């Protein structure tokens, strides 16, 4: 277990910059999520922490010791790969014992460790099976056991749930969360799924276009993304042009207090769920232009005065296309870029 | 990175061992005299090259025969192998394994056994001593290679593109010329090249089935090898390598001309 610190990490392949100036601190025993679109550099960051790549510049620090040039073999920063990468010719037991044998753990200690972890991941009855004979969820548990049995300094989960069916995905998330709770490893979860990141960790770092955009609680990232790039990645938001003057943002939807310097050309972010439709008279009149039903909510496209078109995410399904309605902004922070 | 020097030595001596002998062969063809302890020929001359390539009429005959036989063998091989490889690569059917085994078996059975076994049949069919007979025997030995490559290609490409083309309204003919052929072209090319080389290299099969009437480059080469005329043998060897390379280049060139710029050539 370890506290992990990245200091001004850069990584480029030839001309192409993959990571730029990433600094980050992850606490001992924390379940930390690294969120970003595919190609953002988050997997590279994971590989840098594991020592499978060396940074072009910057430092990787484990427990205040510089690990930047420590080889992958000695880092004990274990990745659970997206496709699990179980050794196909080794049994479940042999797969789990592999790292212990590589580290020269004596036979007796090795057997008891493998035995314990097999119990923890509920795979005792499959210990002699080959990976090809296992289901997706079982393979994942073998991969987790293979990593956890080494008592890693940090456990790195690379998109661990993306190969699983929806139902299994949720139960594996619970399983991993419980395992982490119990073993208290420092754990970094890499994912492109914002809900997964928000649900599984208390702190989330978002990387977009090679750069760290924000490190914060899920709530803060969801409601107050600091950059436009991050906001774009999160999606499901309307943008309205306006201006900032004396701490207020002036736009078609009204005047909102914001924490931003004065600017003549500002863009305000209004999440789809931050707007609400109502039949009672409100400040903004509009008309439903389109509607699409999505189960737990319905998406409406609404046109308001001066031709602005806004998307609204509503729990009410009863507005109809063409209906004259009123739009209100729910009390919540507005972000300006 | 341990022993980087040792590994470099191993690799480069391997490269040397594969390529240097060919170079020394070239030197041999232009040497008229090469007395014993000398490391390089004592007299350089075009004599052997000229006498073998230009003055011996049989050389041209052998070259034409070899090329013709190899080309016909390649054509027959592809004609038989492509449809079969498609069935074996794409469809599950009863007897699939047996057919696969049948095609690959000539790799396991000694060539001389098959040749001698076929000798009688071909005599009865009146094909012994003819180009056609030689082509048929060569094809038995080229089919395993070609079919194996093509099965792999069909497995890789799958049936989905053909199905998509059919759904888009393409006729069977258009599917063949615009979808299937371009997609399997890399495999088709390597199958063709392999067939050509295997046929071009045949000695004992041509010797038996040709019955002395069909002269090919290997048949010209072997007697000189047996009588120790190493320079003449070297000239034929060089002719051999050059014509093989030229044929490969020609086949690649044709494919690239008709399917130019296609990404699939890189697969």
């Amino acid at each position, binding site marked *: 277990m370890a506290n992990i610190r990245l200091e001004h990490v850069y990584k480029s392949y030839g001309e192409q910059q993959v990571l730029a100036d990433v600094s980050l601190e992850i606490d001992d025993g924390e379940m930390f999520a690294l969120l970003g679109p595919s190609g953002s550099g988050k997997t590279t960051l994971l590989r840098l922490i594991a*020592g*499978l790549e060396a940074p072009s510049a910057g430092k990787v620090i484990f427990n205040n010791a510089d690990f930047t040039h420590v080889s*992958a*073999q*000695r880092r004990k920063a274990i*990745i659970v790969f997206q*496709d699990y*990468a*179980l*050794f*196909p*010719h080794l049994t479940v037991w042999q797969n789990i014992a592999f*790292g212990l044998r*590589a*580290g020269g753990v004596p036979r007796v200690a090795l057997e008891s460790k493998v035995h314990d972890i097999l119990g923890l991941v509920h795979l005792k009855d499959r210990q002699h099976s*080959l990976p*090809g004979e296992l289901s997706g969820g079982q393979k994942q548990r073998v991969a987790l056991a293979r990593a956890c049995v*080494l008592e890693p300094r940090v456990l790195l989960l690379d998109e661990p749930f993306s190969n699983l069916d929806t139902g299994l995905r949720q139960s594996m998330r619970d399983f991993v969360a419980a395992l982490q709770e119990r073993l208290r490893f420092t754990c970094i979860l890499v994912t492109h799924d914002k809900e997964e990141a928000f649900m599984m960790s208390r702190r989330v770092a978002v990387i977009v276009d090679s750069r760290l955009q924000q490190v914060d609680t899920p709530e803060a990232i969801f409601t107050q993304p600091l950059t436009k790039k991050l906001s774009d990645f999160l999606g499901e938001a309307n943008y309205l042009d306006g201006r900032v003057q004396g701490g207020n943002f002036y736009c078609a939807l009204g005047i909102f207090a914001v924490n931003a310097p004065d600017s003549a050309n500002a863009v305000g972010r209004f999440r789809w769920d931050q707007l609400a439709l109502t039949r009672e008279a409100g400040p903004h009149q509009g008309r439903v232009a389109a509607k699409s039903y999505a189960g737990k909510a319905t998406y409406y496209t609404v046109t308001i005065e001066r031709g602005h078109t806004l998307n609204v995410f509503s729990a009410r399904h009863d507005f109809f296309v063409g209906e004259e309605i009123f739009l209100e902004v729910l009390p919540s922070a507005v972000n300006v870029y | *990175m*341990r022993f980087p020097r040792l*590994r470099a030595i*191993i*690799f480069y001596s391997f*490269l040397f061992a*594969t390529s240097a002998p*060919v170079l*020394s*062969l070239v030197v041999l063809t232009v040497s008229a005299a090469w007395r014993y*302890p000398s*490391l390089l020929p004592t007299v350089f001359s075009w004599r052997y090259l000229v006498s073998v390539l230009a003055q011996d009429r049989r050389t041209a005959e052998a070259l034409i025969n070899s090329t013709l036989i190899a080309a016909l063998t390649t054509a027959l091989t592809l004609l*038989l192998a492509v*449809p079969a490889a498609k*069935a074996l690569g794409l*469809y599950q*059917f009863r007897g*699939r394994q047996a*057919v696969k085994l049948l*095609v690959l078996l000539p*790799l*396991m*059975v*000694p*060539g*001389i*056994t098959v040749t*001698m*076994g076929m000798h*009688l*049949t071909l005599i009865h069919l009146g094909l012994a001593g003819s180009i056609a007979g030689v082509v048929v025997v060569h*094809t*038995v030995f080229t089919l395993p290679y070609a079919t194996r490559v093509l099965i792999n290609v069909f497995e890789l490409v799958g049936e989905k593109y053909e199905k998509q083309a059919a759904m888009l309204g393409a006729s069977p003919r258009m599917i063949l010329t615009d979808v299937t052929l371009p997609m399997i072209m890399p495999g088709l090319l390597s199958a063709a090249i392999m067939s050509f*080389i295997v046929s071009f*290299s045949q*000695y004992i099969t041509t010797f038996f089935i040709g019955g002395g009437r069909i002269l090919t480059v*290997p048949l010209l*080469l*072997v007697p000189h*090898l047996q009588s120790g005329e*190493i320079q003449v043998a070297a000239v034929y060897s060089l002719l051999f390598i050059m014509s*093989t390379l030229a044929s490969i280049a020609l086949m690649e060139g044709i494919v690239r001309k008709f399917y130019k710029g296609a990404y699939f050539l890189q697969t």
Partner: protein
Amino acid sequence: MQEKSPLLKSCGKNTSCAGRLYATWRPYILVAPLVTFMGLTFVLALGSAVLQSLGFVPGAAANVLTLRFYREVLLESDFLTSLSYTIYIALVATLLSNLLGVMVAFVMLSMGQRPKWQRLLYQVPIVIPHLVVIVLVFHLFSQTGVASRLAYWLGCITHPNQFPLLVFDRLGIGIVLVYLYKQVPFATMIVAGTLENISARFKEVAYNLGAGRLQLCTQILLPLLMPTILSVFLITFAFTFGAFEVPFLIGTPAWNTLPVKAFFYYMRPDLTYRASSMVINVLITVISLGFAIAYGHILALIQRQTEGGER
């Protein structure tokens, strides 16, 4: 659309009836030309070889089915010598070429991606026919060859007679050299391809779990490479075991390999010797196929361990 007549249910449109029939028979139609061809050539040839080995030789004096020729050939004094010589050469050539091929493949892997010209250069021998390689070995390793001259200049020998006999020799060194030149690059090419794939997939995982180079090689790469090595071994062994030209042209006159022996029998004017020739041919074929079957079993065993795995 909801209601379908029984006829429609079973057949759909008229054309799809034919279509379905075609779909069932399509694979057979596609393989038919190849199977017919192989039947008329290869299978018939094997049948003819077996028949002739049983004494049914058209044109020869007696045409009775008999096992006499098998007995005669097997009891011949030099049959066992030929058999062991053939196996010896095949085994030495195959083991050495596989060993060297695997070694070079590992060396190449550790040296990283080689430039294209180097990859083309080492594959040159694969397209050079055996006959030409014989010329090369002759030129390089005969008693007056390049190697002998080098030995002279290095002061190892003073006369070509002192250079060891490497061509036409009893140990079959010349033959093995020909096979090595052809087969080491072949083994390297096939093994290197698989090795790159395996390594790309599992190297980082093994390092990540704390394994060293040696463990990666012995516990992951080699076991996963085994089916490939075995395939290459079988293909090269079957080829060298049944090959005629190389031992015929640069083998020792003292002993013949089985294919060469079969050839000499076949070429005798007395046609009854063709039966003996075919006996040897049948025996070589049976031994080769025996190896192939054994290989199949071993491969199945290994593949239960590997390919039964992922993908």
